[in-house]
């Protein structure tokens, strides 16, 4: 197959994918999104002859627009625009999970400091304030007191861009010092790891230690439901252990997997490329049938 890889940076994750694709003899076109221009009707030349495009844009804004352009051109893209649009925004992400009946932390959104303060008081301390767009644990605030809440909300409303005036407030989940990252392809888990840290943020990007994790049936069920809720694709589903069950706090759409690949026995890029091959084969068969 001929795969286009959309990128703005080739990190180890992209390198693992590129090497796996090339080792299997697939043709790969790397497309640097910084150099492209998108017409309303005709795709740029770099996209000629591609069977599928894998979106590995680091910038959420680029990812959302390019996936939409590609769908308009009729070029298959992983992940879909709908999935990117939901996963890129924490409020849409939480709504999709709640709509699908997937357990997710209690969350409220407000647009003024006064309304946000009312939510904070209702949730009690600590609670968590997150930017609706962002990643790697950046700009997340665990609010421990009224004075901290007032200061953080004032800073966000004064210094932030308009997205920071969408106050996304979440109950604080008492997790056992770790959370679970599952890489899944259309809801099928590829591998999972726990991320442990003494810090309340357990992102691998924040230096959490990682270890392979074996999913039980309930976790697998939730991964499938969470994937379906956001439209499927190659996803990173984040779960926390909460009492006897799990709660899914978010689903990531341009998922990184280098830390996971180092932590688990599974060959992650090989399994992802297996899935990509099957997906392209499936779409081509479907196109032949309907032709």
């Amino acid at each position, binding site marked *: 197959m001929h795969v286009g890889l959309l*990128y*703005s*940076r*080739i*990190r180890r994750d*992209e*390198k693992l994918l*590129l090497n796996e694709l090339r080792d299997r003899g697939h043709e790969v076109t*790397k497309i*640097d999104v910084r150099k492209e221009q998108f017409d309303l009707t005709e795709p740029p030349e770099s996209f000629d002859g591609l069977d599928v495009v894998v979106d590995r844009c*680091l*910038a*959420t*804004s680029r990812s959302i627009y390019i996936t939409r352009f590609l769908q308009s051109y009729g070029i298959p893209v992983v992940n879909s625009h709908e999935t990117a649009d939901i996963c890129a925004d924490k409020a849409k992400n939480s709504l999709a999970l709640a709509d699908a009946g997937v357990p997710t932390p209690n969350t409220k959104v407000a647009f003024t400091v006064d309304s946000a303060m009312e939510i904070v008081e209702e949730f009690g301390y600590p609670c968590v304030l997150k*930017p609706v*767009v*962002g*990643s*790697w644990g*950046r*700009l997340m605030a665990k609010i421990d007191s009224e004075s901290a809440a007032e200061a953080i909300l004032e800073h966000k409303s004064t210094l932030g*861009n308009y997205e920071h005036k969408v106050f996304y407030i979440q109950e604080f989940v008492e997790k056992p010092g770790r959370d679970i990252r599952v890489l899944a392809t259309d809801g099928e888990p590829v591998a999972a790891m726990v991320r442990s840290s003494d810090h309340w943020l357990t992102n691998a990007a924040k230096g959490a230690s990682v270890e392979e994790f074996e999913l039980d049936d309930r976790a697998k069920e939730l991964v499938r439901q969470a994937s379906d809720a956001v439209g499927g694709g190659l996803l*990173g589903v984040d779960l926390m252990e909460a009492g006897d069950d799990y709660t899914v706090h978010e689903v*990531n*759409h*341009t*998922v*990184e997997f280098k830390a996971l690949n180092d932590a688990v026995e599974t060959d992650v890029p090989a399994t992802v490329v297996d899935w990509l091959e099957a997906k392209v084969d499936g779409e081509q068969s479907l196109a032949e049938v309907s032709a």
Partner: protein
Amino acid sequence: MSDTITAEDPLSGEEIELPADVEVGEIIDSPATGAELEVVSLDPVTLEEAPELEEDWGE
């Protein structure tokens, strides 16, 4: 065949070693300064300081 190649660190001017299989767009940590550098061309390998992290970057 060597597994490494050399290129000039644009920040320090030092010659630094890179894996021989680097490709355009790849981000490497400079062994001279620790800064993130982007491979902008091959043959010869040219490096530039990688773009700053932006707010909407992530997963």
